[in-house]
Structure formats: structure tokens, C-alpha cells
């Protein structure tokens, strides 16, 4: 079935993806991406390793997963070709450096995401989730190997790019590409945290909170005349922290219950 038949063409999100597919139809020197034949919301891409870096000469292939709310929500990128910079088969997403994924802007596009990926590759990984810090030599070896890498869906990736130069970036574009950061999708990982881990975390939290309440005295004004002021201070603090912990625990327990019963 053709894409045109399968999707509601009136939906702005679908129209947008069709447009992007047109815009990116022609392979360029730096990147190429197109939707899978049977799924407009999954694309495969190939990017060329940035010149004058340890990725020079490499070809990197991967998947782009578009959320149903695209472009209101950011695409996820999954690299498939071993590269020494990002783990393969792991979702990475785009945001403005140092901000939450909500800082994705709907006026960015798949092209933006690919340019950001290319620009971001040589930046040191500094140990963030989903990042690898292979040596330059190891990365160069992977870059050379990547020329022969094949995707089971798309075939040999080194043939996917052309010699067409990409249109020059606007000032605005190059500005925001500099600002974009790619991170492993931490929130998703967190949601997959097992109940046990969750409980452990919670115990730690409770300990910390209790230590804090015992060691700091910011609630000194909470005193009553009938009880020894010192006791009441401690009592009030514990009361407040217990309430806080209680609320947190019940929120988390609710979430766990919901997960168990409804998913």
C-alpha cells in the first residue's frame, strides 16, 4: 500500500513528513534520509563522518523514529553502524544543550537533526549515557570498516550519498545547530527502572531526608508553648519530612500499581 493511501493527508503532522520526504529525496554529499516504504514514521539515514576528525571517511547509518506528535515532539535517532562515539541500537534525542527534551523546537526538522548529529559526533562524550569514548585510533578503524557496512533494509550504505553539495546553512540554522545536544533518552530508561531499584532509591531518599532533617534547623519558628521548644522543633521537622516522604511514596506506589495493572 502506498504511503498516500495509508495516512490521513489532512493531518498537519503527516503533511509535514511528506514534505520533509520531498525535501530530502535527493541524496547529498553529507547526508541522506528517507522513510521506510511501509512506515512514514520510521526513516533510515546515512551521514558522512565530518572531515578532519577521526570519523573522516566513515559512513554512518541509522534509524529515525518520529513520535506520533511530530513535529511537536523531537525525533529519536538510533545509530546502527559501529562508530565509537554513540552506542548502537540506543535511542538518542535532541535538545538544547543543558535543557530538557522539551526544548526541542517544532521549526527544527529531520535535516536539522542530521546536521546536529554530524556536528555533535566529534564533541567529547564526557561520559553521558549512550556515549562511548573510544580512542581516535579505534574510531578511525571503525570509520574505515564502515565503508563495507550494509543495512539489511537499505543495502550498502557507502552508496547512499551523492556528490551534491548541501545548501548553505542560514545564520539561524548554524546558531541552533551549535546549541543542540544529543542525549540518550534518559526518561525512557528511568521508566524502565525495576520496582526493586525504585524501592532502593526510595530508601536512600528517605535516609537522606531524615539525615537532613536531623542536621539542619531551618524550622526554628515552629514552636509551641506547651512543649519543650527543642523537642517540638524536632517533632515538627520530622512531621514535615515524613509528610513529604509519604506523599512521594504514595505517588510512586500509584505509578507502580498503574504499571502493573494497566500495561
Amino acid at each position, binding site marked *: 500500500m502506498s504511503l498516500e493511501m495509508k495516512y490521513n493527508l489532512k493531518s498537519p503532522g503527516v503533511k509535514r513528513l511528506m514534505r520533509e520526504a520531498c525535501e530530502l529525496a535527493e541524496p547529498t554529499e553529507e547526508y541522506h534520509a528517507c522513510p521506510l516504504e511501509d512506515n512514514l514514521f520510521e526513516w533510515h539515514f546515512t551521514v558522512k563522518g565530518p572531515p578532519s576528525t577521526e570519523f573522516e571517511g566513515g559512513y554512518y547509518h541509522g534509524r529515525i523514529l518520529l513520535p506520533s506528535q511530530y513535529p511537536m515532539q523531537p525525533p529519536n535517532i538510533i545509530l546502527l553502524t559501529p562508530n565509537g562515539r554513540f552506542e548502537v541500537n540506543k535511542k538518542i534525542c535532541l535538545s538544547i544543550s543543558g535543557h530538557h527534551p522539551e526544548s526541542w523546537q517544532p*521549526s527544527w526538522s529531520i535535516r536539522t537533526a542530521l546536521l546536529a548529529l554530524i556536528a555533535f559526533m566529534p564533541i567529547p562524550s564526557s561520559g553521558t549515557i549512550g556515549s562511548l569514548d573510544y580512542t581516535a585510533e579505534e574510531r578511525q578503524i571503525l570509520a574505515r570498516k564502515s565503508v563495507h557496512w550494509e543495512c539489511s533494509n537499505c543495502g550498502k550504505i557507502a552508496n547512499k550519498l551523492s556528490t551534491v553539495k548541501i545548501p548553505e546553512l542560514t545564520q539561524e540554522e548554524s546558531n541552533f545547530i551549535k546549541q543542540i545536544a544529543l542525549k540518550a533518552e534518559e526518561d525512557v530508561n528511568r*521508566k524502565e527502572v525495576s520496582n526493586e531499584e525504585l524501592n532502593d532509591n526510595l530508601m536512600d531518599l528517605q535516609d537522606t531526608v531524615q539525615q537532613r532533617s536531623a542536621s539542619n534547623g531551618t524550622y526554628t519558628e515552629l514552636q509551641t508553648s506547651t512543649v519543650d521548644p527543642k523537642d517540638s522543633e524536632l517533632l515538627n521537622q520530622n512531621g514535615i519530612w515524613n509528610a513529604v516522604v509519604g506523599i512521594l511514596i504514595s505517588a510512586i506506589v500509584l505509578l507502580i500499581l498503574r504499571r502493573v495493572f494497566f500495561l
Partner: protein
Amino acid sequence: MGDEAKNSSTTTEDVPQLNQDELIMAQQRQIEKEISESIPLVGELESILLLEHEYSNDTVYQEKVRNLSLKYSSIRRTRPDGNCFFRAFSFAYIERLLDKKEEFKAFYQKAEKSKDVLVELGFQQFTVEDFYDTYLDVLKRVGDIENTEEAKAELYTLFNDQGYSDYMVVYLRLLTSGQLQKEKDFYSCFIEGHRTVEDFCHQEVEPMYKESDHIHIIAACAALGTGVRVIYMDRGTGKAVTEHDLPEGCIPSVHLLYRPGHYDILYPV
């Protein structure tokens, strides 16, 4: 100022272990998201007196609602998802223009020219066009309907279709960002911290779900060439609600009710 649901997540920030802090915040965000999604993007017209039920145990608010009902007959709620100002403002303004065919025509002509300014400012042409096309499409679809009531019903339908509704929000966010950048000398003194107007736009105006402050409202009004009256209702002293016209001294075309963290649309008596 913005949607309460989002602001509240800052209260846990001094818990030392960052991971646990973030874990809880992520879960909190998820709960808030689910609550928010159960509320329509733009609600039905309701009598202002129904607000009193919301505060059945709160005499301070009840008094204020009665006060409010002297000037306003109805309210239309919007989803508290951080986009409420942009959604409420664009819906209410277009709805009002539908009553005045001439003004609507002038507005449409202005909207037709709005894209070029954004492209000149350096926004990616390809995506700006995408939002612009849908924005004009919505205006055209409601503008082409002769009968005003039917046109308003169509507007209501489109604004409750997540695809169209969010596209309207995005385009108004872009126009607002464009306005701020076009007059950055004027706006830069209202921006807190050491951010440039461009940074502020990228971080606080263009992304979806980012709440709106005075500066967003003033720039959005300037971009569309109109004014807004915001009625503030909080637990503050006094029986009256406070009003604020943005920009100051304007003749407001849209009336919004602001309760800490959220905007709804008001309809004068």
C-alpha cells in the same frame, strides 16, 4: 508565571541526589501530563457562575467570582499544557474577528504577509512555510463560512483537533519570537538574567509547552496588532479582581482570566 502544573516541579530541587530528584520529577511530569490531557484543548462556553462551584469551600474566591460575574457572563477553559496563553489568545481573537468581516479581512491580509518577515529573520524557510500554510488554511476555512455561528463552530472544531490546534500555537509562537527579535533593543531590558533576546526566544518562546509571561503577551499582541485585558484572580486581599491591559492603554479585543499558572478566555457581559 505560567501553568501551575509545571512550576510545582521545582520544589524538590534541593534533594541532594540528583538522580532521585529527576526520577521523581519525571514521574510527576507524567502524572501532570495525564491530568492535563483529560481537559479539552479549548472547552465549551460555560456560565461564569459555574466557577463558584469550583470554590464551594472557599469564600475568598467565591466573593471574587461574584465580582467577576458583574463584568463577564461566560468563560471558556483551555488545556493547562503550557500553551494555554497562545491557544486561548489566538482562538479568542479569531473568534472575535469572525463577528467583524472587514476586520477579519484586514487581519487575513496581514497574516498572508507575515511569513516573509520570519524568513528574513533567518528562520528555516521550509518549516516556517509548513506552519504558515496551516495557519492560513485555518483562517481561510473559517473566513469562507458565511454564517458567523457556523464559522465559530468550525473554529472550535479545528482548535480541538490536536494537529491544527498545535500548528496554530507554533505559528503564533514564531510570530511572537519574530516580534521580539525585530524589536530586540526595546525588549532586551525586560529579559531577566544574561540572556540575549535570541537565546530567550529559542529557550522560552519557540519551544512548545513553555509558559507565557508578560513579555510573551506584549510581543504576541504587537505581532497581531491588538491588545489583551488580563484579569488576575488569586488569594490576594480585597474582594475585587485586578485587571491589566497589555499593552498598557490599549482597547482590548480579548479578555483572559489568569489564575496562578493558567489562562482561560472570558466573555464580557
